[in-house]
């Protein structure tokens, strides 16, 4: 259920503009990897390239390879739709489908690609996914109510439930807590620690305390200046990055000297 990601010489372009340059790294299965760095340094772009979501933006393209347990997801004939079923994504702003109930939201991904599932299986899946997202107890009595009626933190956990209902190998999270209050943030962080047992998790965050709290490894992205490409400056064990970074730029950033 959990796979390793190998990134080799990844360059990401928006049209002719090089946004991320020469990233090579390995993300271990069953771990949480945090990506930190100042705004505009390319960490979200890099995250999106891990499930080909950057292709939604016109003109975006990549060079290099991203392998999922040895399978290149940019290889010839690879269907981005199938890549995204293996590599799920949770967004910055909670985005449950407003026209769907809580239950329908959880099943939204499962019912895609002409899949039919039995009613009993669907109910089991709804329950297990919502339990997996620590949301079951709060919503079990109102599964048919609209998902948009939940609080922000609950909506975000609903989105996580929707993502894990598809049973992906990897879950990408793009600043999943930046729109949440501290208590909801704690709930999502606790959830990440549990999800780590089954999934490879990559999270982009602006909150360095969060990166230090939840992640096993941390990558620091930086740009040298406006118009320059973002680079992965340092990638190491989280404790090393926050206590004894090898690079000067990393140390400056985590000690709050810039960014």
């Amino acid at each position, binding site marked *: 259920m959990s796979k390793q990601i190998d990134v080799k010489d990844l360059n990401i372009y928006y049209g002719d503009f090089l946004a991320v340059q020469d990233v090579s790294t390995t993300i271990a299965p069953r771990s949480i990897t945090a990506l930190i760095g100042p705004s505009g340094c390319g960490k979200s772009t890099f995250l999106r390239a891990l*499930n080909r*979501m950057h292709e*939604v933006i*016109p003109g975006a393209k990549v060079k290099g390879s991203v392998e999922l347990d040895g399978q290149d997801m940019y290889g010839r004939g690879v269907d981005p*739709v*199938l890549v*995204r*079923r293996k590599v*799920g*994504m949770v*967004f910055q*702003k909670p*985005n*449950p*489908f*407003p*026209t*769907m*109930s809580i239950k329908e939201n959880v099943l*939204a*991904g499962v019912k*895609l*690609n002409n899949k039919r599932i039995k009613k009993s299986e669907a109910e089991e899946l709804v329950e297990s996914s919502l339990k997996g997202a620590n949301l079951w107890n709060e919503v079990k009595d109102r599964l048919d109510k*609209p998902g*948009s*009626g939940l609080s922000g933190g609950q909506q975000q956990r609903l*989105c996580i439930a*929707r*993502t894990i209902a*598809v049973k992906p190998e990897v879950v990408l999270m793009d600043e999943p807590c930046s729109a949440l209050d501290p208590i909801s943030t704690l709930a999502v962080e606790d959830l990440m620690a549990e999800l780590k047992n089954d999934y490879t998790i990559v999270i982009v965050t602006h909150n360095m305390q969060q990166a230090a709290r939840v992640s096993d490894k941390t990558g620091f992205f930086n740009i040298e200046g406006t118009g320059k490409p973002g680079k992965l400056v340092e990638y190491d064990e989280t404790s090393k990055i926050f206590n004894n970074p090898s690079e000067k730029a990393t140390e400056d950033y985590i000690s709050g000297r810039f960014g």
Partner: protein
Amino acid sequence: MSTSTQTREPAAAELTTGGRRFGDQIFRGLSTSAGLVILTALFLVAAFLLWQAWPALVADPADVRGGKGLVHYIAPLLVGTVMAALIALLTALPLSIGIALFISHYAPRRLASALGYLVDLLAAVPSVIFGLWGITVLGPGMIPVQGGLVDYLGWLPFFGGTSSPRSMLVTGLVLGIMILPIMTAVNREVFLQTPRLHEEASLALGATRWEMIKQAVFPFGKSGIISGAMLGLGRALGETMAVAIILSPSVRYTSVLNTSGNPGTIAADIALNFPESSGIDVNTLVASGLVLFFLTLVVNMFARWIVSRRSEFSGAN
């Protein structure tokens, strides 16, 4: 702000405006009166229709045109109006959704904007042109098509007999083409406004583009699609010129659409007969106009009801 602090006036002066802000008041007055003008106009039109139609409503059936009473005169026209408008809507709705989707989600950007202009241009063509085109080009061109429909779908109650270039089907199709631009324009705007967040949510779950459209674009755009359809339907119900030119009406009821045996529409009937009418005949025509007025009112209320039915799930909360 004066230096004399003996009274409490100066301190308060900074925070009080004397209870009025001219800009706000002017704007409130303008928007309130704009709203009132609409209501008044609607009321005046309804009152005029009732007043002018009244003599026909109470007249002796034998005096009404056709000699069998008001209901006998208006009912076929009502049926004809609804038929033509329904054919138009059934043609234009899927087409407009398709074109709008192509422009908003499939076409390359340059082609999309060119196509958008083209559709807007179509909206600017006067209805009399559509009427002339319908009777000189589409009508004759539809003869073999209608013949084919009779041959292959003749078992349906809609096709049979001798096809006419001035049939209800041709009229409905021309109306459909006429209401296509407005519906396409509305749908395109609605589809373009689908929140990026919802589209990405769907794609990130592994949806294909079509599945994303079904999951994110259509649910978001549903009320807009219905509003656009109602705008189009309203125009089709009230369209006069094109129908008056194309349709060759009779006063029978039939479900067959490809012959010249269908009743006319209210709007076209008024336009064709009003110049030569006088006395009770004028009142009869106004009465049919009153029926058309209520029909569009009912259609609009029905549409609003559909839109509001699942407002809890609309995403507005």
